[in-house]
């Protein structure tokens, strides 16, 4: 029996290795990859880091495939191999002891359930600091290992302070990463416990697992359940936030350091480009506001202009009602009275509520309903309440005052101007603009 098991293990290992080697040879040939397909990969989560020292491009499809997709297959092959090895336990052993041995042994296949999180897949967060470390080192930060704070003096005081802040940030980032990994390990351990519980449900004849794939799927279920429980814990939320925040602090300091160097070399920086972009976007908003007259103040201005037109017409004896620009309705939609709410949704596949059986969708106040009457809803909502063709003197004064205020608001307030995005009708010339 022992000889049989040994032979089985030897064959399965040979097959798995042969299969994987074949894949790698083929894919390396197709992609022109170096001998070690996973060597020199960048951080998949951080494409911006490609080109940094020690970071190779990771966007090539074949590289991505090798790194993410096929590493999963590779892990599964390894898993099957270990699982098959672990199956070769002495006959007659109590199943719980056997499973305990299986799960806890040196060759057990479940030890690294979430290894992907802190190896390849999560490099975007948890390993980028290493690249920044290399970048900072090459950029002149040489004494990064010194943990103790040392006051700086003289001409290089600021540089020294920046470097020390960066070192502190790196250490903080590493600490938060350690806490994160500890939780991942905890999830892994709890996944194994859950797997044992799930296996206990398969003891009865007829429910036993008869294939490696069935065991693998059960393990994935158990591991994901354990991970989800931890990922939704308060502790994980705190650690996750702290880890990301620490890494952003670290990256921020690296950026500052590099920007200082760029300024010294007369090179444009990201901050300068950002400033230009921000100003450009503000100008675009202002332009839109001027073109389309959108926004609250401009909408009010349009309404008041219409009202003035009505006043002028009334002074000339024309008693037509004042038209209201769509922008006015757009800027200040009438707030309908809140209706009684249902206490909850019905736990059925489809639940519909209507105001009343005899009433169609949308109330009399509904814009949708209003539009069916032939009048734009906005007109209905914002039509002047008086409808008078001969406003009083006080009314004319108030109108003039509001017009001046609205115009002033459009001209003066930077904050208001930023919000004045045109809801206007797209002009034909705009239709094909890139």
């Amino acid at each position: 029996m022992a000889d049989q098991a040994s032979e089985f293990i030897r064959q399965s290992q040979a097959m798995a290795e042969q299969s994987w080697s074949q894949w790698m040879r083929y894919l390396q040939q197709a992609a022109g990859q170096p001998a070690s397909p996973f060597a020199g990969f960048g951080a998949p989560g951080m494409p911006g880091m490609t080109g940094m020292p020690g970071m190779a491009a990771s966007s090539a499809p074949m590289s991505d495939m090798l790194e993410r997709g096929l590493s999963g297959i590779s892990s599964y092959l390894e898993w099957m191999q270990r699982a098959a090895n672990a199956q070769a336990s002495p006959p007659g052993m109590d199943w719980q002891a056997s499973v305990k041995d299986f799960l806890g042994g040196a060759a057990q296949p479940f030890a690294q359930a979430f290894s992907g999180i802190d190896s390849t897949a999560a490099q975007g967060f948890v390993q980028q600091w290493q690249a920044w470390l290399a970048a900072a080192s090459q950029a002149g930060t040489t004494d990064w290992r010194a943990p103790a704070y040392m006051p700086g003096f003289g001409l290089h005081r600021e540089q020294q302070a920046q470097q020390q802040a960066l070192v502190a940030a790196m250490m903080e980032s590493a600490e938060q990463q350690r806490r994160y990994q500890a939780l991942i390990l905890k999830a892994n351990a709890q996944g194994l416990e859950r797997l044992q519980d799930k296996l206990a449900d398969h003891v009865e004849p007829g429910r036993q697992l008869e294939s490696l794939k069935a065991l693998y799927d059960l393990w994935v279920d158990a591991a994901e359940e354990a991970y989800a429980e931890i990922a939704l814990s308060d502790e994980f939320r705190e650690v996750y936030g702290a880890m990301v925040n620490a890494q952003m602090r670290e990256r921020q300091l690296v950026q500052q350091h590099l920007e200082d160097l760029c300024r010294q070399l007369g090179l444009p920086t990201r901050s300068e480009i950002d400033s230009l972009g921000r100003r450009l976007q503000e100008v675009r908003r202002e332009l839109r506001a001027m073109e389309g007259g959108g926004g609250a103040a401009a909408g009010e201005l349009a309404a008041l202009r219409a009202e003035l037109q009505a006043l002028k017409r009334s002074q000339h004896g024309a008693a037509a009602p004042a038209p209201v620009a769509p922008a006015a309705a757009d800027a200040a939609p009438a707030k309908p009275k809140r209706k009684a709410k249902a206490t909850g949704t019905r736990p059925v596949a489809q639940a519909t509520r209507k105001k009343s059986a005899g009433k169609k969708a949308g109330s009399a106040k509904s814009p949708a309903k209003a539009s069916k009457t032939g009048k734009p809803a906005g007109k209905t909502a914002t039509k002047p309440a008086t409808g008078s063709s001969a406003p009083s003197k006080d009314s004319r004064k108030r109108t003039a005052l509001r017009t001046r205020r609205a115009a002033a608001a459009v001209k003066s307030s930077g904050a208001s101007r930023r919000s004045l995005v045109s809801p206007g009708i797209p002009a034909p010339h705009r239709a094909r603009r890139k």
Partner: protein
Amino acid sequence: MDTPLRIDPAEALAEINRFQRKLAAGLQNLPGLGEPEYANTPRELVYAEDKLKVWHFTGSRPTARTPVLIVYALVNTVWMTDLQADRSLVRNLLEQGEDVYLIDWGYPDGADRWLTLDDYLNGYLDRCVDAVRHRHGLDAINLLGICQGGAFSLCYTAMHPDKVKNLITMVTPVDFHTPDNMLSHWVQQLDVDRFVDVMGNVPAALMNWVYLTLKPLRLNQQKYVGLVEILDNPAELENFLRMERWIFDSPDQAGEAFRQFIKDFYQGNKLVRHSLEIGGRPVDLGLIQQPVLNIYAQQDHLVPPDASRALGKHIGTQDYTEIAFKGGHIGIYVSGRAQREVPPAIHRWLRARD
């Protein structure tokens, strides 16, 4: 004594052997496959601005009088709605008689880093709606918002009620603080100001990594183990690769809009607290009086059902309909069940209100 594991060593060896053969078959099939195409249902460009495009789907004679504009999320691309010929929400809606438009937000770059939610909703989206309205000479059109695009559609309808006739939301988060919302849980203590200040635009690959870590073993390993099972099936393999393309060919997120969305929606949960403002305009779901159809997925791990169902408690309209779809966040567009159930349900609901 019985044991839960009854794996015969010889059978295990055969299983590994079978797996190896499947793997070897893939060597023959992979090189012949180019970039898998989406369904590419015939369409015409009707409006473009900066990087966004509004497409009108052609090739069928719509029976609906009011067109429907699909508002997709900023994350991933809109082509999930037209993934492949036999898995296309767009194509099925056309077959039902709907007149379908769609906004493709494009791929933001550094020039778009300062786009805010105000720019997206009261700017881009509003002009897209106007473009469709004026093509049809209508005061109001139908909106179909998907995921984050559903939240956008709700906000837009609250701010521009006169331009929306009927509103459909699909797998749309409304209450961002339900206890099973893992994404929300993770960002609660994120210093999003520093994050955006440092990152600028948020890289798509980083977003994808976060999504993968929601179910790390399933999405990083088990899925690819499953791939080996279909390597010798060219059609299935092409479908798999098409989905891979859609998942990972995704846009970066404009920094300012991301900052606002995380702060106001995920952290502040302002949509259900009635305290949201976009561009200085209050966004109150209670103001929405249009008919609303809310479709959610019962196994949605990105937008939990309770996060979507919360809409019923906060929406102002009395004409509110919920449909629960038996599937996940993606399955609601691409599964066989979805093709049979979702487009007809949308069409029936719209037809009753056209």
